[in-house]
């Protein structure tokens, strides 16, 4: 195991239309998991090879014990990755972030305009608060990544977000296609998502207008099958991390990642009563995954030349959509069925 994904609270102070976790709305600090239980789980995972912890949620900075947790991770010299909406980052928090082994700090920003961002994030004023957080990080020279999730409402915002990311000094900008999971499902049902052709057009536009250069690195998070050779050579192949991680949900339940929040049958225990190593070594779900990936991948994934590296893009998403951990990744399958899957990458 290389990483634990800690979904520190199942509450969030924003209400994003596309969130795949669908947390409950709250602006109050949340007790969430007892810090001692988390520390115990992290220490136990250390003996399994743990190198990093991803703190996410809900909104991780709503977690009442976040400062104590960061201090513990610093003591244990564990790398920290954080995914946040950035609205709760203040001067004190910046100091805490500076003193831990911060490997990546990802802040969600869906538009360069207040109106569009606030509309997507479901709370008025969220753009200003996120921007304030970003400016604070920038002033304190903390390296951060901006994450933009693409849907119909913000497709025109890409140039503005790139410009803003450069202005703020972000290390990278990750552009994520929306996934039909959690609240994201409704975006698909209302057909506010971008079709594959549109996503590919935007990817080519970004590649052409903003070729790799010093400074901001732009990561268009499409499955590797659609990426250019140049991009694969430069950035490598992103793999579904499912073989090397475990997720701990806001109530302590242990799952293959955050998917347990919406798909209960992928929960394998709870850190309050179960041992992480016991689950890591004996869970029938994990044993089956280790035996069967990539060999049992179905549909277009079975025939893709990248299947050993990519492992089917996101197995959690495949399961959430179909109830099958080996179902093809929806974007790749859709592209194959509509004749858009690159033939040179299919056997």
């Amino acid at each position, binding site marked *: 195991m290389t990483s634990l994904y800690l979904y520190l609270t199942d509450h969030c102070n924003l209400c994003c239309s596309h969130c795949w976790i669908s947390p409950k709305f709250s602006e109050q600090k949340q007790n969430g998991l007892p810090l001692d239980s988390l520390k115990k789980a992290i220490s136990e995972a250390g003996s399994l090879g743990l190198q990093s912890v991803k703190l996410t949620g809900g909104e991780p900075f709503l977690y009442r014990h976040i400062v104590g947790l960061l201090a513990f991770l610093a003591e244990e010299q564990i790398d920290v990755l954080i995914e946040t909406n950035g609205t709760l980052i203040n001067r004190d928090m910046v100091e805490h972030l500076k003193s831990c082994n911060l490997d990546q700090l990802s802040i969600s920003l869906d538009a360069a305009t207040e109106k569009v961002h606030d509309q997507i994030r479901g709370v008025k004023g969220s753009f200003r608060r996120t921007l304030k957080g970003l400016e604070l990080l920038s002033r304190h020279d903390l390296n951060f990544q901006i994450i933009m999730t693409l849907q119909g409402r913000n497709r025109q915002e890409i140039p503005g977000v790139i410009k803003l990311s450069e202005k703020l000094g972000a290390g990278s900008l990750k552009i994520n296609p929306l996934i039909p999971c959690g609240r994201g499902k409704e975006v698909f049902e209302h057909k506010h998502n971008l079709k594959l052709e549109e996503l590919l057009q935007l990817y080519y536009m970004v590649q052409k207008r903003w070729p790799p250069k010093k400074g901001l690195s732009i990561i268009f998070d499409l499955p590797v099958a659609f990426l250019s*050779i140049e991009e694969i050579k430069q950035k490598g192949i992103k793999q579904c991390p499912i073989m090397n991680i475990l997720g701990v949900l806001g109530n302590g339940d242990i799952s293959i990642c955050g998917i347990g929040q919406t798909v209960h049958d992928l929960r394998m225990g709870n850190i309050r009563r179960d041992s992480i190593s016991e689950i890591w070594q004996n869970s029938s779900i994990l044993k089956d995954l280790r035996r069967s990936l990539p060999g049992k991948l179905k549909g277009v994934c079975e025939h893709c*030349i*990248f299947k050993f590296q990519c492992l089917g893009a996101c197995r959690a998403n495949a399961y959430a959509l179909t109830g099958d951990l080996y179902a093809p990744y929806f974007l790749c399958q859709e592209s194959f069925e509509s004749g858009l899957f690159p033939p040179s990458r299919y056997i």
Partner: protein
Amino acid sequence: MDLTQKFKKNKDIVYKEEGDGAFLFDPATGNLKYMNRSGKETFLSLNDQQDLNQAVNYMLGQFPDENRRRIEKDLEPFIKELEENGFLFPLHRE
């Protein structure tokens, strides 16, 4: 590097052209390599009837602006990588 060595291609691998280059993929091991144009031409020139000297001559014909020494120098790590990935096997001399 022994330029009199001959190589045999692994018949179970998949060769797929893309752009100027090509992918090599071994479905049994998952090994994957993208070759640029010169790599692709080199790979295509290899067969169990020709030794590496002949492959170098073929490459000189394809890329007349390159010099022999440079091609030979690039050939060594390229062949080594293909061998390590199981895409090629050296033919044993009798």
